[in-house]
């Protein structure tokens, strides 16, 4: 390898380190969130996500305290088989276990020379005993959190178990209709789609029309109208919440999808028009004049020429508008609230009402992240503007 190449690699090294660092900063919490969402909630409450592949809880304490007599698999003493549920059931908690250990066994101390375990260690051993005896076996990974979140389950156990034992809450039917339970993320997901899709498509279509008109149709006071629209971008959304809410109350639009479609379309348009005008205005003028000479009206030129060529702009505009609507809580809270809860509203509810419901919160977070990630990865190639190559001599 030549000196030049080494120098080159070393020159890029700081950039690479920074990039890797940035990736790690973003990826590690996301990864932790994903792992957490896939663990049983009992595990989440007792250990961190990074211990997910470590030995099960209590196994170390068990091998220190019990394994010398009972064997590492717990079966060495036949009449006190630790894998027998009936034996283990007598000591479900650390207090009973400690009390039994303190009693003499055949005149000797039960543990002999081995030191008595601390209460926390005893609890871990009890937990371990339940695991090897099969009383309470928890898998390392489970999808129950996702099911619970989707169905809107709010109990002490989980949806699958409760339904199996018939102990489910009154608002659950234990069939697929539970996906539409108003407390669940499934219904919220659907509501979010019903909000986000029209709120993305409407402003983009209207902005494309307007952008074309501002770029290629000559009409009076075109510049002033455009300047006004650009100026509208600085109107803060919060300022309009009360007047529009009052207006909607009179029109009966509060809590309806139509209301929120209109609101998001209105607030998305100024920027969308600005972006579309700048993009369409940057297309070569010759192209449109050529089309007009070929016999195209403005309508044809828009659909056959402007729209196909502005796919990159439409895609990036679509992605940003979609993500903004999808992640919006404020507008959805004010105009839809609990009547038609969206994802962000449901997540915010979980934090407040369940406090420590980490297992549901992480699963819900991942459910709400799924679609934006799909949208982004499937459309990201449109971020690269390569469509115009070959139109004019480059």
């Amino acid at each position: 390898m030549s000196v030049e190449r080494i120098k080159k690699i070393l020159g890029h090294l700081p950039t690479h380190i920074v990039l890797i660092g940035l990736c790690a900063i973003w990826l590690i919490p996301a990864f932790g969130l994903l792992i957490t969402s896939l663990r049983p909630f009992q595990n989440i409450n007792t250990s961190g996500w990074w211990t997910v592949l470590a030995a099960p809880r209590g196994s170390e304490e068990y091998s220190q305290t019990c394994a010398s007599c009972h064997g590492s698999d717990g079966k060495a003493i036949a009449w006190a088989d630790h894998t027998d549920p009936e034996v283990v059931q007598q000591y479900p908690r650390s207090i009973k276990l400690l009390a039994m250990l303190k009693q003499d066994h055949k005149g000797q101390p039960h543990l002999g020379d081995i030191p008595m375990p601390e209460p926390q260690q005893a609890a871990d051993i009890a937990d371990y005993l339940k695991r090897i005896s099969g009383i309470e076996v928890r898998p390392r990974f489970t999808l129950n959190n996702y099911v619970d979140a989707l169905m809107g389950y709010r109990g002490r156990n989980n949806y699958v178990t409760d339904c199996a034992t018939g102990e489910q809450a009154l608002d659950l039917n234990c069939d697929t209709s539970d996906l539409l339970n108003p407390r669940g993320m499934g219904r919220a997901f659907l509501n979010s789609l019903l909000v986000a899709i029209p709120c993305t498509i409407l402003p983009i279509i209207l902005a494309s029309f307007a952008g074309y008109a501002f770029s290629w149709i000559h009409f009076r006071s075109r510049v002033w109208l455009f300047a006004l629209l650009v100026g509208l971008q600085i109107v803060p959304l919060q300022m309009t919440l009360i007047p529009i809410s009052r207006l909607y109350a009179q029109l009966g639009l509060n809590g309806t999808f139509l209301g929120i479609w209109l609101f998001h379309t209105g607030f998305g348009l100024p920027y969308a028009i600005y972006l579309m005008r700048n993009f369409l205005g940057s297309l070569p003028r010759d192209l449109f004049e050529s089309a007009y000479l070929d016999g195209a009206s403005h309508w044809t030129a828009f659909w056959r020429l402007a729209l196909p060529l502005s796919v990159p702009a439409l895609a990036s505009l679509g992605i940003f508008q979609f993500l903004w609507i999808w992640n919006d809580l404020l507008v959805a809270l004010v105009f839809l609230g609990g009547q038609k809860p969206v994802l962000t509203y449901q997540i915010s509810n979980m934090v407040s009402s369940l406090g420590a419901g980490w297992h549901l919160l992480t699963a819900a977070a991942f459910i709400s992240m799924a679609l934006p990630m799909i949208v982004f990865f499937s459309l990201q190639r449109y971020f690269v503007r390569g469509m115009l190559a070959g139109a004019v001599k480059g």
Partner: protein
Amino acid sequence: MAGVIYDHVTKRFGEVVAVNDMNLDVPDKEFLVLVGPSGCGKTTALRLLAGLEEITSGEIKISDRVVNDVAPKDRDIAMVFQSYALYPHMSVYDNMAFGLKLRKTPKPEIDQRVKDAAEILGIEMLLDRKPRQLSGGQRQRVALGRAIVRNPQVFLMDEPLSNLDAKLRVQTRAEISKLHQSLQTTFIYVTHDQTEAMTMGTRIAVMKDGILKQVDTPQKLYDHPDNMFVAGFIGSPAMNFFETKLSGTAEEMYVEGPGFKLRVPPDKTKALKGHLGKEVVFGIRPEDIHDRDFAPPGITAEPVTTMVDVTELMGSEVYVYLLSDSKSFIGRFAPRTSARVGKQIDAGFDMGNVHFFDRSSEKTIR
């Protein structure tokens, strides 16, 4: 098939007059070249005809129909743009068929016309490609093809060759001329390149600052320019101009310039009589200045003593930059010339091919 008439056409952009009272009559089947330096209004004149700009005053007629208020698409014209303006998202076939489809031409006919045009231009194998997959020359052909399939009354071309390399330009130049002959349609062609104008045009219209300076056949334009601008613009290297004074008598007239005094040929004295004793501009083309030792036979080359400043060998000839009384001018000498830099030689002015211009109006004195 139709002629085009510009009748007192004026176009203003705010304060700027882009085309000033233009009168031009282009008969049917003519290849008219609009030529001039950049910013002279030639492209604007073409865009007015295409309907891409609105006329401020005057009338434009296509085949005797006033088209001032006719939309571009209804003028039955096709235009080839400098940038080609191909639709980047359509295949070559669709690019060419676009105009026909919009005019609701039956499908088999579209197919036939596109295939025919592609055959004329030799682009049959490119029909499925996208513009970005084509070379510059191929894109240029597609742009031509898009105009041909429409079968318009008038073809407009706005510097269609300026984006091609030199070799391809020469080749395409000849092809467009051939196309004009086979299509038998009116062509109006805008260029700033006087070689293109000279080689392609049936007639040439020279423009400057929005004003049409002269319209004539290439040969007449070259031999008998109406004014100093046309004289200087057409021809390469450009015509030499000298500030001179006419002296002598009406019978024996002399032109006195920097470092020379030459007899005006008798056939020109009549026109110049009125300017006797006054200052005039004397013009002579480089090819009419010879090395006296190698002047072609039959030419009376009047001697002018000059100093050789620079020589440029072009192969078939030598451009010699000469100094006469510190006034610089160019002669086109045979390569055998003995002119060497720094040497004094006798240049021969062919007085049979000289031009005189009025100093103030810059018009040719006839």
